[in-house]
């Protein structure tokens, strides 16, 4: 990277001087992009990459942030969510970080974003073509629970031996009468690779199927990247007599916007244990509020 290029990258007045565009150096970004290209070529397959130290601790999204840094461009509009919310610590800080080192536009609106980094949710507003969503992944290997050896797990992936993965579902039905796995519910991508969708609620699993957006997954500590290209089949594991189903809230509605079809968070609001149910996706909730008020006026 020559000095002149560095200067041109940092030309935007809002960016912090002394950093390369998007924090990582160009060679690193290039190597991560190579891993991403491989990942896109083999949907659901984990690609190792040389994960870097980031100015935050492991477990706070170092994988996601490296993927975002590698694919972000000056024209991008970035949205960052944490458990669906745009205004939580993690989301605010990652958004501010990229504003500082890239000078890109940021937004809280799903529809306006070209690049979305997420922790543990997929936005309620359907994603569209041209958008990219980056997931922060703590543990990329779905077979880890049944096969502690990485070598053996790699062999099982290669030979498509995924039967043992169903043991977990079997145990769920035996103990609870239904498949109780609530998050990080394993999926088969493109009828081939078993994949962990990161700890999103299983409510979000169907959204991954045939999604028009590009979905990228980064695990910083585990040094793995994987991807689901647009319009790819993503099927959640299930049994013939116990089909996959998503959570429901017994007709509860969000107490802010009244939505009954979004993922609801249970919030304890006082010392007596009173609780309320609200949308986990803040942008969607605000949008519904506006729609409601427009309906009232008309």
């Amino acid at each position, binding site marked *: 990277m020559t000095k002149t290029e560095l200067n041109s990258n940092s030309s935007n007045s809002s960016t912090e001087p002394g950093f390369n565009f998007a924090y990582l150096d160009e060679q690193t970004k290039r190597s991560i992009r190579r891993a991403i290209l491989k990942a896109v070529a083999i949907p659901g397959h984990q690609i190792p990459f040389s994960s870097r130290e980031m100015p935050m601790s492991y477990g706070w999204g170092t994988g996601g942030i490296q993927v975002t840094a590698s694919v972000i461009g000056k024209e991008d509009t970035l949205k960052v969510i944490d458990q669906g919310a745009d205004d939580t610590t993690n989301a605010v800080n990652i958004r501010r970080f990229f504003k500082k080192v890239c000078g890109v536009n940021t937004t809280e609106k799903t529809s306006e974003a070209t690049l979305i980094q997420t922790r543990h949710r997929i936005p309620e507003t359907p994603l569209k073509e041209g958008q990219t969503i980056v997931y922060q992944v703590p543990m990329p290997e779905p077979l880890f629970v*049944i096969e502690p050896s990485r070598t053996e797990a790699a062999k099982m992936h290669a*030979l498509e*031996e995924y*039967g*043992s993965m*169903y*043991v977990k579902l*079997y*145990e769920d*039905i*035996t*103990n609870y009468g239904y498949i109780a796995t609530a998050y990080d519910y394993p999926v088969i991508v493109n009828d081939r690779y078993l994949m962990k969708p990161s700890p999103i609620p299983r409510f979000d699993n169907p959204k991954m199927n045939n999604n028009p957006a590009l979905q990228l997954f980064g695990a910083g500590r585990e040094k793995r990247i994987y991807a689901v290209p647009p319009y790819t089949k993503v099927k959640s594991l299930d*049994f*013939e*007599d*116990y089909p996959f189903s998503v959570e429901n809230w017994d007709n509860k509605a969000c107490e802010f916007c009244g939505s009954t079809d979004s993922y609801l968070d249970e919030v304890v609001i006082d010392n007596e244990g009173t609780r309320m149910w609200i949308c986990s996706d803040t942008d969607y909730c605000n949008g519904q509020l506006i729609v409601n008020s427009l309906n009232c006026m008309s």
Partner: protein
Amino acid sequence: MKPLLNINRLSKTYGKLKACNNINFNLYPGQVLGIVGESGSGKSTLLNCIGSNLEIDTGEIIYTNSKNEILNIKQLPEPQHRKLTKTEWGFVQQNPRDGLRMNVTAGANIAERLLNVGVRHYGNIREEAKYWLEQVEIDTNRMDDFPHTFSGGMQQRLQLARVLVTKPRLIFMDEPTGGLDVSVQARLLDLLRSLVRNLHLSVILVTHDIGVVRLLAHRLLVMKNGQMVESGLTDRVLDDPQHPYTQQLVSSVLINN
């Protein structure tokens, strides 16, 4: 009758140590073959070489599968090999902890073999698991209990049920009665004998217990220092041992009795 399994000049070394030296034998359908010998004689190595946990140095293992195809195990591609060990073959470990998943229920242990061959109907899997628990005389009420709550004999029988659920043709057993007290041993042997006969199983059985082979095995193979020193019908070998080592082995048991 064509042999189910044909072992041809099998050798396996650990460095300079010849654990198995030039072993030859045939195993026919429905036959129970006992391998006896003192500890360190290479009998477990031989079993692991054939049962495919260990790679062999020289020699051939020829297996005729259920479709009557003749397979050279050493040259068989890994996917088919692994499939074979999960369907037509079964391995009963000496220590049930090696053959079972201790952190999932007994039912799930049996279910796993079915899930591995692509069965995806929970109800059917439960029924099947229940049936095999009954076959190995485990109370079906214990189906949703963890194996570590089972006694040693029950764990061993659970291991057997887990293997039998895919209707294997060939079973490898490494000291199946090791660590069990005498009355439990007798029951397990009784069960094994009836299962072998009813399901027409072929078994290779490794043990150092002459009593076990006398009860179960049709043919006997005596090993010492990695060599096969004597083989033949069980009764013949035990009643008229030819090799000095076999004579010693048999007489030592008689003295104990």
